[in-house]
């Protein structure tokens, strides 16, 4: 299989990369049945280029309802890169003649995405204290991208997201009183449509950030990008599930909300609304819980019958304790 994709990639790369002499080391990195990520090397007389292919193979063109689509992702990455947001350079958007499906090829960015390494390894010790602030600055940049340049994206509000989560949860047909409590809390505390509507990354957290000793090098995975309340991204990055044990540092286990907010406000001048951020943190915690249940469902229904998926189903209880800590904290 690897030989076939290398031949396809080589033909594709020669069409847009003058001087490229070949493609090697194609390796599948991750992804499910509908989306693949491949790493490969482009041989070039001026020096090899590390590249990443992100694609939906032919026959998997239909994106899940929530996904922005790979074509939109490529546009967003280009816009982000041009605006100075740490982002991989998009080298090529796949065309039908490439016969590689739908997707794009980008330059590989070296660095780390594994949270436990970022939070604990000595390599990142100097960067860690600065990262919460930097994440705020980057989010301000993302939210500042001009709306008229954006591709077609879904427009979401708190109310529409609550409705989606409720529908997904009820589809599992498994009673979870804590999820019900959270759904009820969200409906009761819905802050209404945001006065400011921006691009929302939608999945801004560990795993989708390439980090080096110098700080954030790239924001990845714009699959869940949409238009909505910019505070959503700030709440999502504070969800306890992304703290990986460093539970007293709300921003991805790296730092404080105050640092995140200060970075955000300094980079753009727009005020952070901490109440809205808290609302979105509750929403995000429930969302991850519902996503864990969804992975269990996919395991059970067959398409991805792996023990990893099955075990993620047993992580939804983590979000229940996190929701109780947010909504019904016990006395000290």
């Amino acid at each position, binding site marked *: 299989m690897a030989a076939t994709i290398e031949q396809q990639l080589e033909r594709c790369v020669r069409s847009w990369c003058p001087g490229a002499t070949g493609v090697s080391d194609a390796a599948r990195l991750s992804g499910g049945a509908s989306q693949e990520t491949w790493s490969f090397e482009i041989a070039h007389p001026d020096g090899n280029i590390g590249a990443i292919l992100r694609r939906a193979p032919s026959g998997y063109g239909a994106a899940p309802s929530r996904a922005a689509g790979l074509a939109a992702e490529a546009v967003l990455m280009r816009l982000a890169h041009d605006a100075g947001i740490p982002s991989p350079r998009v080298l090529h958007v796949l065309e039908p003649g490439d016969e590689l499906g739908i997707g794009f090829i980008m330059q590989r960015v070296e660095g780390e995405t594994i949270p436990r390494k970022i939070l604990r390894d000595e390599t990142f010790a100097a960067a860690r204290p600065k990262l919460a602030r930097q994440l705020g600055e980057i989010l301000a940049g993302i939210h500042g991208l001009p709306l008229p340049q954006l591709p077609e994206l879904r427009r979401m509000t708190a109310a529409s997201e609550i409705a989606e989560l409720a529908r997904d949860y009820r589809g599992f047909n498994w*009673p*979870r*009183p*804590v999820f*019900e*409590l959270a*759904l*009820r809390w969200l409906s009761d505390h819905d802050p209404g449509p945001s006065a400011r509507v921006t691009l929302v990354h939608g999945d801004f957290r560990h795993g989708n950030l390439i980090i080096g000793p110098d700080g954030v090098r790239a924001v990845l995975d714009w699959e869940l990008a949409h238009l909505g309340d910019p505070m959503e991204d700030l709440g999502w990055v504070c969800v*306890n599930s992304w*703290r990986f*044990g*460093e*539970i007293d540092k709300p921003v991805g286990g790296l730092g404080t909300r105050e640092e995140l907010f200060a970075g955000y406000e300094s980079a753009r001048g727009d005020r952070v609304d901490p109440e809205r951020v808290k609302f979105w943190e509750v929403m995000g915690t429930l969302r991850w819980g519902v996503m864990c249940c969804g992975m269990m469902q996919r395991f059970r229904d067959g398409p991805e019958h*792996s*023990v*990893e998926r*099955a*075990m993620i189903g*047993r*992580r939804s*209880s*983590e979000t*229940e*304790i*996190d929701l*109780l*800590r947010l*909504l*019904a904290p*016990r006395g*000290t």
Partner: protein
Amino acid sequence: MQDEPTPSELIQAVADFLRAEIAPQISGHAAFKLRVSLNALDLVLRQLALESDSDAVETADLSTLLGLHGSLAELNRALADRIATGEADLQTPGLADHLWKTTLAKLAVDQPNYAAYKRELERK
């Protein structure tokens, strides 16, 4: 009545074998999958040890809280419905305590090393 060894003893024996003899022989993605698999076996062992007691307590507590009788699943559905309709909320006497107790019982099986769970245990 089924014979011995018990399911727990059998699973423990399999887990011990995989950990001691297979884990050192493999690497990469297979080693990752083996670690996840061993975590799954450990989870099953915890559930086999803890489930019957925690289910009995939860059923009794739900009966008291709701004033109803039924299976654990039926009672949980009834509680979920009452919260959804607003008939029960955090002001309902006993509700917050019940949710905490049942959630801690889930974490004891699912992820006893989860930091938020360990923090809450320290409060007891």
